[in-house]
């Protein structure tokens, strides 16, 4: 029983980074842009998240406000990198796949360079602690699994209905969806396709940055080159898996983080199973999911990946 509690609780904790990044990626994909650089933005976010608390406290405890500043810095940088990506793929109309890889390398490299210069080594930070919710966390089983998480977990899961509302019930969401499905129609009715795409990339980048900061401040409580290890790419895959819908993406994030926690459980139980195969599991799962969910290809925003050019005469 204890094992199940640990597994579920851990799965929820480690799903947040995937969830945040994937929700963000969904927003820009709905507008027609897919950003493989999500992984690189998460790297930068992870670095910036812990930089501020570390600089102040050098590994020791610091007032919570510095953690918040770290989160804000990561989110802001994420938005900035998203806009930068917009410059390349919206204004210059470069192919999004390869450009995304370029952004990933830039982000990962920058994070590594800056980290070695400003922090170096394997410094850890106390990070964001987990205040248990009074009363609710005492409920047997449910309390330990759901109500003893850190604050960002609740924020992340609240974002699911929030983003759903924004995308489907507000004018901006309507604009985003039209731009990703039929940009020419949106353009002809006066919607600024370029502006909407930039905005959606800023949102996507911001959430990816936040996701990265979560990794360094809440999950691993440190930074290293391999802290993201593919979560950004998995987040992009999750958008396909979740058919570009917030709730489905949420389930996907939980499923994949379950696969990731599998490895921790095996090691902690001392089972004699090569841990490498357990680590492989989420990545294999992505491929299996992509291979067998053919439906998803038809459901995506029709203009996904296609640069918009008003001047092209059809």
């Amino acid at each position, binding site marked *: 029983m204890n094992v199940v509690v640990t597994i579920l609780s851990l799965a929820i904790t480690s799903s947040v980074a995937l969830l945040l990044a994937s929700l963000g990626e969904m927003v820009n994909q709905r507008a027609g842009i897919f950003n493989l650089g999500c992984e690189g933005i998460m790297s930068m976010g992870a670095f910036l998240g812990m930089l501020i608390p570390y600089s102040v406290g050098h590994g020791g405890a610091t007032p919570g406000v510095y953690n918040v500043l770290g989160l804000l810095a990561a989110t802001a940088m994420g938005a900035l990198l998203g806009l930068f990506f917009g410059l390349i793929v919206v204004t210059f109309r470069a192919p999004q796949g390869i450009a995304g890889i370029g952004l990933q390398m830039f982000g990962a490299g920058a994070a590594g360079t800056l980290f070695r*210069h400003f922090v170096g080594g394997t410094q850890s930070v106390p990070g964001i602690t987990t205040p248990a919710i009074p009363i609710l966390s005492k409920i047997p089983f449910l309390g330990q699994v759901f109500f003893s998480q850190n604050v960002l977990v609740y924020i992340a899961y609240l974002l699911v209905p929030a983003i759903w509302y924004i995308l489907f019930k507000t004018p901006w969401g309507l604009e985003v969806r039209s731009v990703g499905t039929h940009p020419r129609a949106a353009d002809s009715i006066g919607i600024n396709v370029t502006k909407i795409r930039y905005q959606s990339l800023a949102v996507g980048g911001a959430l990816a940055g936040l996701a990265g900061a979560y990794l360094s401040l809440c999950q691993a409580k440190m930074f290293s080159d391999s802290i993201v290890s*593919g979560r950004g790419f998995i987040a992009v*895959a999750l958008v396909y898996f979740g058919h570009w819908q917030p709730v489905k993406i949420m389930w996907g994030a939980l499923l994949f983080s379950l696969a990731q926690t599998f490895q921790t459980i095996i090691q902690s139980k001392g089972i004699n199973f090569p841990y490498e195969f357990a680590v492989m599991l989420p990545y294999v799962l992505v491929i299996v999911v*992509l291979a067998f969910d053919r439906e998803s290809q038809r459901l995506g925003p029709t203009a996904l990946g296609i640069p918009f050019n008003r001047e092209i005469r059809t």
Partner: protein
Amino acid sequence: MTKQFRILYKTVILLLAVLATMALGAIILLAIGAPVMKTYGVIVFAPLKNIGLISEVLIRTIPLTIIALGIAVAYRSGIINIGAEGQMAMGILATTAVALAIPNLPKPILLPLALVAGITGGALWGAIPGVLKAKLQVSELLSTVMLNYIAEQFYTFCLRKPMLDPAEMTTGSGTPQSMRLTKNIWLTRFIPGTRLHTGIFIAIAFAIIIYFMLWKTASGYKMRAAGASQRSARYGGINVAKYLVIAMLFSGGFAGLAGAVEICGVHHRAIQGITSGYGFSGIVVALFGGLHPAGIIPAAFFFGLLLVGGNMTQNAVGVPANMVQVLQGVIILVIVATQMVLSNAYLMEKVWRKTHKEATS
């Protein structure tokens, strides 16, 4: 519009691209307080100072060339191979397995066999995303990246368990690596005092082979057509799915070959970190070289410079080696953006008219 103007226009665009690259890299350099121009100087010029350093650049040029050739074949056939890291790793494992299994065969037999094993390992690993795309329309962008991570884990496992050096087991120092491989697969180091090995001739030979294959044969034509306009190629009777898989077999096989060459020429044993970055650097080299063998060889040399120079910057100017990855990312972004600018005829006309008007008014 005159031909002069066209050439001038394109040159200016390229210069702006170079400046943009340096500026974007400078952002990070300034953030860490490093001297910008001096750093760039170290990266590009320091490795040229003596024969020893130049040979190190050439050593890196070899796998970069081979991998980039493979990526170029795939790219031109319409499939973007981000999985060279994993394919290289699999190639290394295959080569090592052969060398460990039958070390006593004479060199003229074992060496080619080892290289072929490397090619096969990489090709099979590359075939997976190829088939996934051809049969199930799975985007290769995601599948190749995932396979990189999977291969990385598998590689570590093999070095930790089945292929572990017996010496490591006894001393217990725990480094995951294989034992020293038989001299029968070593590529000759032909310049005394350096590590430069005959793999360089293999790289050049394959560059020539790829040139003829892609541009002078019917199969190459079909692959390029499939990459240039998949629908039209299909309507023209070309079996696009088949060529996608063939392209990935080539691409993976080349990455595997690069791995094999690294084992046989440089390291002589399988260790952690051989692939690190070559798979991704190979992509940048391919793009920078215009996806053509004639451009890839000099591009590979340039990136070899970057890699060696990047290792020297920590000591010289206090810039961590990760800066090379930053530059690679920037170069990719600038290249793809520049390509779009160069192919924008409308823009060129606008600039012509604006400048021409000023001249006559």
